């Protein structure tokens, strides 16, 4: 068949030509001549239409196959020429300053970096690191923590409900409740980086999803001084220097006395800067002595045992430590953001 022959000739012609090609510019010319818009292959494709219908398909396949082989040969020839043209093949000067073959190393998310640090701090303080479920029941998330059904504090922690009795936990406290239910006191436990949910509108300091660190110590003879010491150790571990911890009274149903925890600003050393809004202090979150009712709820005798607890956002710590001004950046995962950690 005439068409098949034409294809064969073209193939032969091409492979003869390509063997003589010596440079990239010659190769480009060859490429245009065969594969270009007005090239030989395109011409044959247009000739296809003149063939009888029954032959069209087969001829098309043959032509496509040739086109592929030509494409591959051109690519191979290009690689070969480039290889031969490589700088090192043509010089005796060794340039040590040419950048080496670099590759990209990944980055650990800043929230994980804080989790890592907390993990080692609390291991060294001999805490047991515990996890729990994100889907909780009302009892463990609220009632056991002395937040009764119509307690106004429930409004403060506006929750996502799955059904009547199940919700996405609003804090990691249910993990501590379950620990107290199952482990015998004395105990020292901490949850690090547990995901929590609150129906807060999103802004620079709030996201509906966030992560908490929450610690609990139950023992015969512990008080707010011990809490203060543990927190100081924790801050020393995170910020790598002595940080002052102070408390102001605050109300949380599950601790009494309850406190808002503040740390001296690690940036200005309490001189006043924009991180601490010139107050010298930064608010972290709640802490205090475990409420006796919480102990009674989990079957611990409040006359025999005392306990303290503390909890706040990992995001908050990361924002302070790294000077991040918007909590939403953690969840946006911009490469330029991640690259910095």
């Amino acid at each position, binding site marked *: 068949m005439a068409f098949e022959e034409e294809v064969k000739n073209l193939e032969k012609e091409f492979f003869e030509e390509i063997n003589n090609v010596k440079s990239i510019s010659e190769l480009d010319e060859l490429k245009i001549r065969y594969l270009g818009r007005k090239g030989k292959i395109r011409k044959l494709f247009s000739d296809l239409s003149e063939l009888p219908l029954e032959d069209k398909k087969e001829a098309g396949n043959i032509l496509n196959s040739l086109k592929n082989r030509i494409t591959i040969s051109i690519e191979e020839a290009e690689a070969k020429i480039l290889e031969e043209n490589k700088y090192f093949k043509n010089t005796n000067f060794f340039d040590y300053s040419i950048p080496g073959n670099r590759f990209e190393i990944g980055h650990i998310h800043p929230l994980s970096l804080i989790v890592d640090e907390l993990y080692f701090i609390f291991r060294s303080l001999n805490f047991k690191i515990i996890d729990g479920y994100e889907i909780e029941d009302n009892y463990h998330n609220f009632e056991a923590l002395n937040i009764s059904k119509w307690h106004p504090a429930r409004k403060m922690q506006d929750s996502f409900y*799955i059904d009547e009795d199940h919700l996405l936990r609003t804090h990691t406290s249910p993990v501590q409740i379950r620990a107290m239910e199952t482990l015998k006191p004395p105990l020292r436990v901490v949850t690090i980086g547990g995901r929590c949910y609150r129906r807060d509108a999103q802004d620079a300091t709030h996201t509906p999803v966030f992560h908490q660190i929450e610690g609990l110590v139950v023992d015969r003879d512990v008080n707010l001084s011990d809490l203060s010491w543990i927190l100081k150790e924790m801050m020393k571990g995170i910020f790598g220097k002595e940080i002052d911890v102070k408390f102001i009274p605050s109300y949380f149903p599950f601790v009494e006395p309850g406190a808002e925890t503040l740390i001296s600003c690690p940036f200005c050393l309490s001189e006043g800067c924009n991180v601490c809004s010139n107050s010298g202090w930064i608010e972290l979150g709640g802490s205090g002595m475990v409420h*006796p009712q919480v102990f009674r709820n989990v079957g611990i005798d409040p006359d025999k045992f005392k306990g303290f607890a503390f909890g706040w956002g990992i995001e908050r710590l990361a924002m302070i430590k790294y000077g991040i001004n918007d909590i939403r950046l953690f969840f946006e995962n911009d490469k330029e953001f991640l690259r910095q950690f």
Partner: protein
Amino acid sequence: MILAYNFLKEILKEYTPSLDELTNKLINIGFEVEDLIKHPLNDIITVRAKNVEKIESLNNLYKVEVTDGENTITVVTSWEKIKIGGIYTYASPNTLILGKTLEKKQFGDVISDGMLLSFKELSLNPDFLSAVEREGIMELPDDTPIGHNFYELFNLSAPLLNLKVPFNRSDCYSFLGILREIGAAFSISIPQEIKNKPNFIYPSFNSSKIKRETAKKDFKGVKILNKEGCPYYSCTIINNISVNRSPYEIRKSLFSFGIRPINNVVDIANLIMYFYGQPLHTFDLNNIGGREIIVRTSNDTEELNAIDGKTYPLTEEDLVIADDLHPIALAGIIGGRDSEIKNNSKCVLIEAAFFNPLYINRTSERLNINTDASIRYSRIVDRTRTKELALMATNLIATICNGTILGEILEYGSDEYKPQKIDFSIGDFKKVTGIELSKYTATHIMSKLEIPFEIKSQDYLTIKVPPFRENDIKETVDIIEDILRFVGYDKITPKASPFYVKYEDENYNYKVKNKLRNLLIGLGFSEVVTDSFVKDEEISLIYGNDINNLLRVKNPIKSGLSFLSPDKIIGFFSVIQHNINRKHTDLKFFEIGKHYMKYSEEEFLDIILSGNRNIENWLEKPLKVDFYYGKGIIESLFIRFNVPYKEKKNINSKIFDTDESVDFFIDNSNIGSFGKVNKNIRNYYDINQDIFYATIKLSFISKYILQIPKFTPIPQTQEIVRDIALVVDDIVKVGDIIDKIKSLANSSLTNITLFDVYKGDNIPEGKKSVALRLNFNFGLNKTSEQIQKTLDEIINNVCYTFSAKLRK
């Protein structure tokens, strides 16, 4: 809760702490100052209009002559409601108003020497004003003294402190409660008459002027059908009232609390509430059907048209105040429109009650109504003062509205309060706080807080909980906290905790994650953290109607965002979109986190890759990520941790391309998948590059990751390497060949590498050539003949099994 600094000054006089001292102290005793509301201190003078004339030559302008008591000043205004005798605020030329300096101005032949001001020009919070006052020139009550600085006159020259009251402190939702705390904090005695002198609210009050009649109005009385919800209800009736604007003195007090004036009836009720914490409700008795009040629970056929303009559907949980037929108020929360006091109301019924906080909380939460009344009732009010305050309000309203009190107060139920007794040992304080406490300090603080106590012994007190602290003092720790607030939280000093408990076990879950994380960053992957919530639309894109097993919240933060993600692909796409929009197209990310189903939450390692494999480089051209590149990463990870995985064709996946995807198994459990994300999903997100996604259940691989290595001696003999090339049918799977060789060779095979797959010249149609490198180590005890024989056997067996030909 608003606290006016000037108002405090009027009471504490020379003992008033400075603003800074006050603010700091309040924070240190548990009252956060949320903000300081400050007003400009311009010299704005109150004046009376003496004469008003329309300026003929100009449209809508009036020439007004005003007096400050001494001088007469001419100003021009466009406010058509301006009237002779009205009291207004006046600014003279050169005063700075809203950032602009006022100048004399000529209108026609009249020169305006300054101007009369609107609330905006006074920089007042619109919440302070009634609707009428918000428009146009601010008109003050008729008895407002003229010739005075406006801001001083209304107690606005010093800031208002907006205090955040802790939930448990119902008593501090009143001025008196805050005052008690300030007294205790600064050791200042609070004048006792503040507690019950109506003159304190309205200095012109004179009890001899109150008009009373014993004659009863045709009021049938009150029936309490739900005693649990309403233990106590009292009411008084005042007839022939004239509803009007409140006098200046009342107005001044309202401003001090940041309350919006409404009328002289409601204003008094509000002031009593802000002062003493007891909410009162005022009804127009003539609009109470059947002239009777029934306190009962509602039902779901009823509703209330409330004074906030909304209609609330009711249920049998709601406690209502009803007339003979319909609810006229939600008890302790909000009143109804029909019975509210209007300008033409003639007879007022004043309600003072004690409602059960449970009912108030339940209803106000369900209907999402927070009013001044509900905030207080939901935290318990001091019922021992309800009657007394009802009478005070009645006397004040009767005086100010010029009405006649009809009969005596009507009381139903009981306002009895039985104080709880709590034993408190001084030594307990140190056990909780670590701070030494003296009996003197303890009793001093108790006295200042008006908490009665008896000294039982040297170290023991018995405390009687006062009614205004019923809500929050329940046991010893509550006393400890109260004392600590005044001793000072800053006295808590750090003390090293001895470790009484020893935990040997680590958190293995954490260890697994840490190992994976470190490995993956080495491979160039960055860790991401994505939201758990995904859009309903995204879920239906992937899961269609197959959503019954997915986890969904009933009350999403916004509609269409109710699902928790059963995979990470959706979260990853938002990361991909974000980065591609920012022109970052080479993406390698992973996340270790939970996938959510209706009945489970499980931890996964999820990986995404797209774009170029490596950064652009002069040594090698950047290659695109493809199926085998990605799969290789997952395989390498498995091999690194000795995970005994198997693979199968991925079927029935909603995420992957039907060809380019694979499932991983251990025994019969599916441990994860890898593949190219199907085009449908990609197109939905408008992404034009291939995306590869892997998802692996952590629980299945963690035991291998945690496996402690067991050393086996390094072989002393040399490895034997054999290259073989097999020609097989195209449809034979290379994986099957490799598996077969592995199973035949047992432990002597140390490695197997596929180094070429080829189709084309010299290979027959429909066949392919598979080239494998086999590394063996047979140990010491085999001769070369035996080895050759074993190799031949393996190769023959493979050739037979796969109808393969050995290629020479």
